[in-house]
């Protein structure tokens, strides 16, 4: 008989998780945000070339269909918004193939919510209010809001909006990252991913919640371009103690622009030989009928639990991580 039937996390953590879910539901109930459920298994999938989906078979004779486990509930939730749901939130599982590590389990729990009529600033205000409740026990310092460009420049001396191979690679060389030049080549997007995750992110949110906003346009597929500066998008990311906790947008509502971004991602997928994804036509139709002006954000609850319980690995907060699932 297998000896690994026992859960990975303690009974204390089961209680901590239950308390967290209760606090979230109470928070949104108090603000009249409706809790919804959308399918985990669906016909559509995200096109983001960085996210790998799980594929499954749906047998309903005489038909056999390919369905996908959702990498995020975003598209289905936007269809609800376009249909007139008003502000909504959801706590659900999301699935990302091939992602496993200290901070990753291929099946994980997300909190995702959308606020009608909110711009990114109001969304950040709400995130701050929610974290004040959920993370009260951590005694965090006052929340920081820093533009991506400033955060990047302060730590690297480089301008993320003006890529220059010579200065980027000499910085990496001096920082003990000689492999960066080969690995990133002339791809500014890859350089930003590399330098941000190696030299910027680790020092973000030192016992405070840090909100990084105004991401470079090349770094966001579903956010609006900033009206005053089209080089950046209305995207925000959350960090505490160097851990990425969530990602939000002032949502792109323009169907033509959305379809163009889909096409660009599909072209990238073909170029890299990744599994072919289809455009979610139902999402495009929903945007076409009109997505209300809104902002939305997703937060990884397992990582919040890691911080709350000071656990070094995601396996410590999951009942049954993938190895035991």
């Amino acid at each position, binding site marked *: 008989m297998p000896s690994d039937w026992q859960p990975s996390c303690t009974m204390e953590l089961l209680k901590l998780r239950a308390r967290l879910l209760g606090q979230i539901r109470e928070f949104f109930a108090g603000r009249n945000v409706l809790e919804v459920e959308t399918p985990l298994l669906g016909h559509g999938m995200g096109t983001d070339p960085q996210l790998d989906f799980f594929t499954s078979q749906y047998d309903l004779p005489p038909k056999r269909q390919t369905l996908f486990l959702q990498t995020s509930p975003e598209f289905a939730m936007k269809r609800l918004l376009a249909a007139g749901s008003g502000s909504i939130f959801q706590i659900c599982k999301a699935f990302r193939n091939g*992602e*496993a*590590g*200290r901070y990753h389990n291929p099946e994980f729990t997300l909190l995702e919510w959308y606020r009608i009529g909110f711009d990114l600033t109001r969304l950040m205000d709400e995130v701050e209010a929610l974290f004040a409740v959920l993370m009260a026990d951590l005694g965090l310092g006052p929340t920081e809001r820093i533009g991506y460009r400033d955060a990047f420049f302060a730590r690297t001396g480089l301008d993320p909006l003006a890529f220059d191979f010579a200065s980027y690679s000499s910085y990496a060389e001096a920082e003990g990252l000689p492999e960066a030049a080969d690995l990133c080549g002339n791809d500014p997007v890859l350089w930003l991913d*590399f330098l941000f995750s190696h030299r910027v992110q680790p020092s973000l949110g030192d016992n405070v919640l840090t909100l990084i906003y105004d991401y470079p346009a090349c770094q966001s*597929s579903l956010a609006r371009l900033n009206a005053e500066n089209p080089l950046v998008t209305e995207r925000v990311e959350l960090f505490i103690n160097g851990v990425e906790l969530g990602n939000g947008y002032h949502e792109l509502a323009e169907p033509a622009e959305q379809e163009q971004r889909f096409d660009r991602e599909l072209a990238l997928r073909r170029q890299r030989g990744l599994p072919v994804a289809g455009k979610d036509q139902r999402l495009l139709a929903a945007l076409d009928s009109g997505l209300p002006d809104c902002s939305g954000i997703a937060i990884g609850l397992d990582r919040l639990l890691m911080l709350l319980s000071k656990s070094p690995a995601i396996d410590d907060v999951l009942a049954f991580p993938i190895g035991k699932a």
Partner: protein
Amino acid sequence: MAVYSTSEFRSGLKVMIDNDPYAIIENEFVKPGKGQAFNRVKIRNLKTGRVIERTFKSGETLEGADVVDVEMQYLYNDGEFRHFMVNDTFEQYQADEKIVGDAAQWLKDQDMCTVTLWNDSPLGVTPGNFVELEIVETDPGVRGDTSGGGGKPAKLATGAVVRVPLFVQTGEVIKVDTRTGEYISRVKE
């Protein structure tokens, strides 16, 4: 040789990087929610012992390094090379001082040790965790002291110098932990 993808990286895996054999010590999956996934690994160069960090794009592959640890008997030193033998096959290997390194001070004829082979040539030598060696030189201890407090240096037959209790004398055989270089006990003949 096998080829390993980043998802197969595990502590202990031996791979080739820049034409040198390395052992993976730690592997961390680094992935921004909306961005490229990386594997940040801590690796030890098996030729130099140096530990460095290196990042790979997730999905990249590395060639495995043909590195194996083999139990061998230490035979003798001919002045230039140390000679080792695999007892089962009588196959012999030789390694110079550069390869044997610090292990030399613990190698006694006939003792078993671990020789790390890369493409069938010695890359390094690890002595057994404990060796028994004769003291060839140490100051006479204070008579009556049996506590071992304080201690004094003692030179062993292989050239190593370890701290021993005052009551231990020249000509005695002692047991030493080669990982720390510490005296463990006297060995009764």
